């Protein structure tokens, strides 16, 4: 094939494109997981406080 007829070499841009797409998806998953973990921890703390408060009048 005549080099002038060959497709241009855009392999690096393809790699960059997929890296960005998958990177954004992974970042969003990480953000969901982190927010979920943070909220669950906070929920457990408040739940234990609520439990202590309901136990206190019985003492």
């Amino acid at each position: 094939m005549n080099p002038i007829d060959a497709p241009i070499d855009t392999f690096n841009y393809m790699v960059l494109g997929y890296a960005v797409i998958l990177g954004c998806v992974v970042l969003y998953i990480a953000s969901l997981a982190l927010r979920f973990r943070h909220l669950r921890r906070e929920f457990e703390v408040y739940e234990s406080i609520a439990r202590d408060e309901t136990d206190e009048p019985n003492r």
Partner: protein
Amino acid sequence: MEPMPKQLKILNWLTIALVAVGLYLTIWYAPREAIMGDVQRVFYFHVSAGWAGALAFLVAALSGALFLIRRERRWDRVAMASVEIGVVFTFINIVSGSIWARPIWNTWWTWDPRLVTATIMELVYLAYFMLRQGVDDPDRRARFAAVYSILGFLSVPLTFLSIRFFRSIHPVFFGAGDALSAGMEGPRMWVVFIFSLLTFSFIYGTFLWHRLRLQELSERLEILKMKLLSHES
């Protein structure tokens, strides 16, 4: 806190499998485009991300309408979750398009109608969160956000049709019989493209379910905090 439902676990694995197969198809199965070369493969996920973003904004608008009709808080939750995911997909769409444009148009960015309207759409939906942050009363917030998500949806068809209404260098993919300008030649490419659309629809569904669980937990935490505060006072 309830454990993750079995159906969601299945959906997680199904989506992961679809992404893996989708990557295989786009990189190895789809033929190399004759003029653009390998970068044309970005198109499969670029268009699919745009599709998933539009789907997310449609779901948000429909949920907003359902909230206004039924006044059930769960529709506000769906709308909010869907807008957040739509913003992520639209961002992916814009950035991957820019990467494709660099070797093909010889620029990262040009003031093309499609690029401009897509960016405006992204900004419109980012403003949705500013609106939510700015209203304290939950009922008013949900009502305002519902109306905004319906009005904001006008930016979606505007983005889709912009390259048909105005002179544009962006390839016209659907309807104009000009898919060749996007490098879509031969049935293999169409199979990969349709599979990518399906994959991104599943990613959207999976994200939505997880985001809704997150929102439910957040609301339960708020209720618990309010209970403790009222107990103290």
